[in-house]
Structure formats: C-alpha cells, structure tokens
C-alpha cells in the first residue's frame, strides 16, 4: 500500500482558498474527504460509482458548478464549497427530502444517527416551502433479514448502488412509485437541481429487481448498513433498541477468511435480564463491506458458562494423555500459538483438516516462488486492478471478499474478468459484460494455468520446453467466412443542368467470401471455451488494461496435483504481470497455516477443539469443557489481506479458556493476549503488544488495523512444472464440498439470523432428478441429506455443506474437494 501511494501522482488543489494535496484522478469529494474537509453528500458511496441522486454535493470548481462526487480533481483546481447559489440549491434539496417524510423520528431505528436529520440541521432547514400529496407505501419484508419501509426511504439509491457495485447481487433497484405529478409552477420557482431531484424522487421507490416482492440475494445486509435513514433495517432489529444505547465493540468477523472489521453492538438483554447480548453488527460501510455471515452471524456466544473445576481437572488429565489435538480455523493466532507450543513441548500432534491442505499448498508456493506470501489482496485489487481472474474458488460461496473485489473491478475500474470454475454460476457471469466464465471439468485446473500462461506470459521468459508444450495445443485451420465489406465505387455522374461531368464516390456494402486462418487453442477448448469467439472478446477485454490479478481458492489446495499448480502459480507470477491472492479457507486459516506445524494424521487419544474427539473442548456448549466463542475472546486474526488484526470480546465469559489449560500444562503467560507479542517473527509476525494494535480506518479509506505481515522474498529459479495430468479428471456423479453463502461453521449455524440449512445444494434441473432427500454414498461411508435448490448454479455437480463438525464431512472427502459418489434416493 505504501508502495502504491508513492506510485500515485499527487497534485495540488485549492479548496476554499487553502491548498491541499490530492491523488490524481480522484473525485473532488474523495479528495476533500481525504483532507478532512466536509462536503455534504448523501447518495455517494466510496468504492462505488456516483449515482447523482441527491445532487447535494454540488461545488464550484474553477467557476463552474459541478457535482463533486463525479468530477475529478485537476492540477491547480480551485474549489469553493459554498456559494450563495449552491447553498440555496442545497437547502431546497433538503426541504424536498423533508416533504412528506414521516415525523416518526421518535420510534425510527436510526434513533438520531440519521443523515437526513443531520443534513436538515446542517443546512439549517427551518421551514418548508414545498408540498405534494403523499402516496401510500407499504412496509415490506424483502427476505428473511431485510425490512424495508418505503415511507422513510429518500431514494438516495445507496442500497441499490452498493448491491450492484460491491456485493454484485444487484438484487434491488429503483422502481416506479406512482406518486403525484409535481406542480408545474415549481419548475420555474424552484432551484434547478432541487427540482430535478424531486422529480425523480417523487416517481421512485426501491424494489427487488427480479420483479417479485422478495429479493433473491445473498442476504448480506450491506444495503441496511448504507441506508442513511431508517428505511432499511434488519427484520430482527426493527424497534428493538435505540442506537445510542448500544455499546460498540470493534472486532473481526470470525467466519470468512477476509477478517472484515465489524462492531458488535451490545446492550443488556431486557429489563429483567441485565446480561448483555449482541443486538446487531455494524461496519464502517464506506471502507469495508461485510458478507451475510459477518453481519448476521453474531449471536454464537457460549452463554451461561462458569468455571467447572471438575471438568477442568478432567481436561488437564485428558491433555496429559492426549496424542492429538484436532481443531479447525475458528481460533485466534494466540490460541494457534498455544497449540503449537504444546506440540513443541509435549509432542502432541496437531490435526486440522480445514487448514492442512492450504498450509501444504502455501509451502509449495513458497518453495516455488521464493516469496513468503502471495502478492496482492482484495483491497488492492479493488483499488487498482482492472483485470481479474478467478480460479478454483467458488466466489459466491467460499470468498465473499473476493466476490466483492471481482465484482467491484468490473463495475468501478471498468475492468474485465475471467472466471474458471467447475460449476456454472449465473451470478458471477452477470457481474459485467467483460466477464468471461469457463465451466471446466473437475481436475482440469492445471490446464487453466497453462491457458493463463499462454494468454498473459511474456513468452521470452518461458523455458523453451514449456513454450512448445503450450504451442502443442494450438492448431491452425482455414475457414471460409462471409464478410461484409465497405466498397468505395467511383462513378462519373453527368449533371443534367450544366452538362458537366463530375466524379462522385459512393460507398456500397458488399458481401464477399473470404478464406481466413483460424487459430484454434486446444487448451481453451479443453476448458469448454470457443477459441474463435474468445480470441476476439479477449482482445477487447485486455484492451488498455494495466493491472492484472488472479484469485485462487480452495479447489486447488485439494487438487491431486496441488504441488504442480502451486509451481504454475509461481511461474505465472514470474512471467506475467499478474498478482495473485489466495483465499485461505475460512476464518483464521492463514494464521493457523503460518503458526502451526500441522500433521497429516491423527492418532491415539484425540482432543477435539470445536471438532470431533475423544475429549471435547467446545465453544458451542456441547463439549466436555466449555470454551469462549470468538465474540467472547480477545486476540488477533491473520486475514486474507495478510494483516494481523485485533478483535475484542463483546460479551463476558466466566469459564476457562485455552490459556488456562496451557498454563497448567506448560510454563505460559497468564493472559491470552500476552501471546500476541510472541507470535513467530520468522513467519512475518511482529513482537507487538495486543493493546498497542490500532483498529480503524482513516478518512481517505486507508486501513489502519493491526499490522501487515512482514513478507520476505528471495530469488529462485523458475519452477519446473509438469504437464497436465488428465488422470485427475473426474466424470460422473460428483459432489463438491461447498457451503451456502452465509454458512462457514457451526458458529454461523448457531446464529439465529442465519437460515441456510445443512444439505445437498444443486441446480434446479438436478434437483428435479434427485427428489427431496438422498443418500450420498462415499465408498464405504454415506450421509443422508436434504436436497436444496441453489437457483444461481447450473450443471450436474452438487454442493455438499461442511459447516457441521458433527457430520465430519471433511473426512468423507478425505484429501479432495470433489468426490465421485453414488446417489441413492431415500
């Protein structure tokens, strides 16, 4: 990031006569915000395209009135924020927003944290000059979590914008309201922009885009977060509490590996029950967008736990005889370090099926590339990348952060994208016109990387053998095509009056037959693409593109040829300008992968930490000893963005923690957070005390949370890669280990606002053949599952959830993510 800033050219602008520095190409509004200058704006969202719905951000730049949200700064630009005319416009706009806005601020869930209220006061609106008959607008519940009160809505379109530009669902947009026509006199008497805004406002309301009453979206709730008024709320939160009563606790989302910054908002449960509970999760929506799990899976705490000495003694005994500890990625860095220390001092094996494959893959990559970590992250992709490639990651299910970045690049950076996956996803291919989706066979991921090498690599850097291997897929073919050609015909025309002859040129369309040579790319066709069409669209896609990036995910870690794939990725990084980001599977997988030395096998007496085992520690309240859940613990996470971020305890916990156990077993610090400074420096961690870790975003959107891992890199030779192994291709009935979008673990499942069930998800067509319930047979083992439709997927492959530890799905799949199965109807 610091590198990034130095590259960007800084220019100087003047705002109200004072000189400031701004990044070139930035919008005036953002430049002002970065310099801590306030320009009123309601509809604009950082990281989204300007909507021009509110028109309140009007400023005067070099003598002309412009909208600061969509005009870019220029060197030496002189900006005046308030001129009499602009103030008049703004006031008129605010008056218009207040027309017919229900006076129910007393009960509104915004409870004063309302932008309409703030701007009305800011612009000193103390009287109303406009009026129009109101229309009845019914309160609607769009989904299991979304509650929309159109009466309160000011149609700023922020919800629709964020849904389209960041989330990618584009599930809601403006729709017709059927309001009364404006009085014609207003056109003359009102300020121009205010009239235009009102004209639009009076006609519109927000509604689901699919034409029904219900949104069919990922229920991320980002629209709720950005709503400036109380129109959009979580159904669960409606009229539950005033904002001012809630204590905000900065934390990290404990579900996806993105490590989104969130605030748990807590208050006592009720008058009778003074124990605090979490009422909702909020975020800095200008700088970070949450997925549904981060926003709605918050009440997974382990309640009513006290110190059970007997259970604790039994735990110590269990640890004394334990040979293996089985755990998952829902664990802080500190806990991971505790377990690693136990392994070092007591020789206990660490068994983690969620992370092991990723850890191996990361090591292969480190060996092949010489780098300690992958080269980019989602935020950087969102900021600058204009071409993204996603391989082996189910964007919608595995990686909400990647999905947002992939989508945002299309919408905001005028970017293009390639999406390689085994399952067709209708949502991803709809992210933009320049998104090309490839649905390939399971096991062909190696071919994807060879194709990327072919498309992007600087061929001169590639070893000769590799180059010829890639070329071996290419064939030339002659083809006769019909082409329309413009032909210029010269004609002598005689002017009848003068008798003069004149030469006139005419353009005539003519169809000619032409023989051309078509390059066919075998790799492309292997992956299910059409080389002819692709060649052309690809040309458009890469046109004027500068920053390329690639997202890779969990499919590759479980690939039988994972090592070769890691080498291919390293090779791509070395020979192309593509930066790579990897999606650590779930929660703190990267932290566990870096800190712990995991084992392949579990043996002997096993202690399960939120997992199966002979003796179970559990934050779910079902184990032999209770543990604090992630919202009851403080500690750090290592996020996908290679950042070590602090999280705080939102709720109290009175039982034993892992630290208490470790303290008895080995010499250890008394507080969990004292481990923070002991995190391994050779892995990039720093010896920083927990309490000194920052947790905030700056006004210009830069992240000041924790610290970035120190990365090392060394020069290594280009890795030797092997050829595509066709033997790993799977055919037949295949299940894919993949969770529904808002489910990651038992903790998300425990939360009451998460409704996605455990089961077998399949496309509509496939479900029709399956029925309601099936038995999925994996060789010797089998599992009976409900069949659930996923409307946004196509094809034959089915997705099997893994978020319930008790179902032990990871062991069913063993070391792969795709499995051939037999389906039996039940």
């Amino acid at each position, binding site marked *: 990031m610091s590198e990034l800033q130095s590259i960007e050219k800084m220019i100087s602008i003047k705002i109200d006569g004072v000189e400031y520095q701004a990044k070139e190409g930035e919008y005036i509004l953002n430049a002002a915000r970065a310099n801590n200058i306030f320009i009123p704006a309601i509809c604009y969202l950082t990281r989204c395209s300007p909507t021009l719905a509110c028109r309140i951000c009007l400023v005067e730049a070099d003598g002309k009135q412009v909208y600061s949200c969509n005009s870019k700064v220029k060197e030496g630009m002189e900006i005046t924020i308030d001129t009499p005319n602009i103030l008049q416009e703004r006031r008129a706009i605010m008056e218009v927003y207040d027309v017919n806005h229900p006076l*129910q601020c*007393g*009960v509104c869930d915004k*409870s004063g944290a309302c932008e309409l209220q703030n701007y009305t006061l800011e612009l000193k609106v*103390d*009287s*109303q*000059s*406009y*009026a*129009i*008959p*109101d229309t009845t607008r019914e*309160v609607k519940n769009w989904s299991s979590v979304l509650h929309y009160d159109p009466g309160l809505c000011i149609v700023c379109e922020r919800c629709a914008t964020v849904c389209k530009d960041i989330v990618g669902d584009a599930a809601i947009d403006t729709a017709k309201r059927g309001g*009364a026509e404006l009085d014609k006199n207003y056109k003359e008497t009102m300020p121009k922009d205010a009239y235009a805004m009102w004209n639009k406002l009076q006609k519109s309301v927000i509604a689901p885009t699919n034409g029904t009453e219900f949104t069919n979206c990922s229920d991320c709730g980002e629209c709720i977060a950005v709503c400036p008024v109380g129109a959009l709320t979580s159904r669960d939160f*409606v*009229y*539950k*509490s*005033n904002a*001012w*009563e809630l204590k905000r606790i900065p934390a990290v989302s404990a579900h996806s590996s993105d490590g989104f910054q969130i605030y748990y908002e807590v208050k006592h449960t*009720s*008058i*009778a029950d003074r124990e605090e509970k979490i009422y909702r999760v909020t975020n800095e929506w200008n700088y970070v967008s949450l997925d549904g799990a981060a926003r709605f899976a918050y009440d997974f705490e382990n309640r009513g736990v006290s110190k059970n000495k007997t259970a604790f003694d039994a735990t110590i005994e269990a640890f004394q005889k334990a040979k293996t500890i089985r755990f998952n990625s829902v664990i802080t860095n500190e806990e991971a370090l505790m377990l690693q220390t136990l392994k070092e001092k007591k020789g206990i094996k660490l068994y983690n099926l969620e992370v092991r494959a990723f850890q191996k893959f990361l090591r292969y990559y480190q060996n092949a590339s010489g780098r300690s970590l992958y080269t980019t992250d989602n935020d950087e992709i969102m900021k600058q990348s204009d071409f993204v490639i996603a391989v082996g990651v189910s964007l919608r299910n595995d990686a909400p952060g990647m999905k947002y970045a992939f989508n945002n690049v299309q919408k905001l950076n005028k970017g293009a994208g390639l999406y390689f996956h085994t399952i067709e996803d209708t949502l991803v291919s709809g992210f933009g016109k320049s998104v090309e989706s490839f649905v390939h066979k399971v096991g062909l991921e190696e071919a994807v990387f060879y194709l990327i090498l072919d498309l992007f690599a600087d061929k001169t850097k590639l070893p000769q053998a590799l180059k010829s291997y890639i070329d071996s897929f290419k064939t030339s073919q002659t083809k006769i095509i019909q082409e329309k050609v413009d032909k210029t015909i010269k004609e002598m025309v005689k002017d009848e009056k003068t008798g003069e002859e004149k030469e006139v040129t005419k353009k005539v369309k003519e169809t000619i037959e032409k023989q051309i040579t078509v390059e066919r790319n075998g790799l492309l066709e292997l992956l299910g693409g059409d080389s002819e069409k692709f060649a052309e669209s690809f040309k458009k896609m890469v046109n004027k593109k500068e920053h390329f990036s690639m997202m890779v995910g969990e499919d590759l870690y479980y690939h039988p040829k994972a090592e070769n794939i890691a080498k291919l990725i390293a090779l791509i990084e070395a020979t192309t300008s593509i930066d790579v980001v990897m999606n650590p599977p779930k929660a703190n997988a990267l932290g566990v992968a870096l800190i712990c030395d995991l084992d392949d096998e579990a043996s002997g007496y096993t202690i399960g930490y939120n997992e199966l085992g002979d003796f179970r520690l559990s934050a779910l309240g079902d184990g032999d000893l209770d543990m604090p859940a992630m919202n009851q613990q403080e500690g750090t996470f290592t996020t996908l963005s290679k950042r070590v971020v602090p999280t705080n305890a939102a709720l109290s916990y009175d039982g034993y923690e892992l630290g208490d156990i470790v303290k008895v077993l080995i010499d250890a610090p008394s507080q969990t957070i004292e481990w923070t400074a002991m995190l391994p420096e050779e892995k990039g961690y720093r010896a920083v005390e927990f309490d000194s870790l920052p947790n905030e975003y700056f006004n210009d959107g830069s992240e000041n949370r924790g610290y970035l891992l120190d990365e090392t890199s060394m020069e290594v030779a280009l890795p030797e890669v092997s050829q595509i192994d066709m033997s790993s291709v799977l055919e037949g009935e295949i299940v894919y280990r993949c969770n529904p979008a808002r489910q990651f673990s038992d903790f998300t499942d425990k939360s009451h606002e998460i409704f996605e069930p455990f089961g077998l998800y399949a496309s509509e067509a496939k479900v029709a053949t399956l029925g309601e319930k099936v038995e999925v047979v994996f060789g010797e083992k089998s599992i009976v599952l409900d069949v659930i439709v996923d409307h946004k997927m196509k094809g034959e492959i089915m997705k099997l959830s893994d978020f319930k530890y008790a179902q032990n799905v990871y062991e069913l799949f063993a070391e792969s993510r795709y499995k051939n199965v037999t389906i039996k109807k039940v």
Partner: protein
Amino acid sequence: MSLEQFKNRQTGTQNYILLDLEHAPKTSMEQFKRVIKRGVSLELFVGLGVTFKAMVKALFAKEMHTTKYPFEKLPISPRYRAIHDMLRLLESGNYRCIGCGLCEKICISNCISMDTRYDENQRKEVSEYTINFGRCIFCGYCAEVCPELAIVHGGRYETASEQRASYSLFEDMLTPIDKLSLQQEYDGFGAISPNADENIKKTPLAY
C-alpha cells in the same frame, strides 16, 4: 450630611417590620417595676384571651386547620413532581408512549428502563417499562424531554409501599382505561407553553 439612606440596609422589596423591643431590666428596681407593670396590666390574661378566642373560632367559626390526611388530601401544585403517570391518548385510549427512549437516555439517575418490540400493527410497542423509584430523584427531566407528553409527574406523593416493585411498572403508572375521561392534562414540567401555537411555522400541506 445625613447618611440615613445609606444606613438603611433593608434592600429589596421585603416589608420587614421592626419590633420595638423593651430593654431588659437592669436593676432590681426596674425589675420590680416590670413585675408590677405586667401584673397590673394583666398581660397574662391577654394570652388566655387569645387561646380562648382561637378555641371558639375553631369550634364554631370553621377555622379548624386540621386535614385528616389519609382520608382528606390537599390539592398539590401542578408543577409538583411526584410518582410518574403514563397518559393515554384521549380519543383512542392508546398509550401515548411511543417507546422513543428519550426518557431513558436523559435520566440522570439512570432509573428508567424500557424494552421495545415490533408489534403486529407494524408499530413500535413498549413491551416493558420500568422506573426504579429507589433511584429516581424526581428531577422531572423525563417529563420535560418526552415528545408525546406521555410520561408526566402525577400527584401520588406517597412513595411508601410494601415492595419496591409496586407502581414501578408501566401498567401501574398508566391511566386506567376506565378512568380515561378523568385523565388530567399535565401543565407542569415539559408541558406545552400557552403560546405554543404561535411559535409554530406553517408548512404547506398538499393533502
């Protein structure tokens, strides 16, 4: 020059009456004289006369001052701040309280607590409301801040009860529905000023 005006230190508008007190006797002669004077002028009987007159007036001229308190109560000032009352809307009988939580927020002794919920009519409903009268200092801020004139101070100043829970719940403070017609508009703390109508700016209305 006379400094009388400066010596008069009775500033302000109080109408003090200076008593012309006689000097205490200094010699035995003076003392004897006073005894004679008081004895002969029968001052003591003036005292007897006063009390007797008071008795006669009390018995026959209705000047008895006693209020038989628990059975008889004196009217209190409308600005008196006693146990809170929760008022209802006069027409519909619904509670005025909308659950905005301002009283809870402003309460300086932190004794008000409420739970709200989304009810079947899509409105905010106060599901629980309680004032801890052990803590309440009857400052009147809650009544003053209430935008709906819902919580007001009532006239119940007898704050003794067998248990603390008595009258601290919403239902106990609420005007009973059958006594709605007897509900008094409160003109103490937080009430609308008499010239409130004049202070409102007119807004164009299109319906």
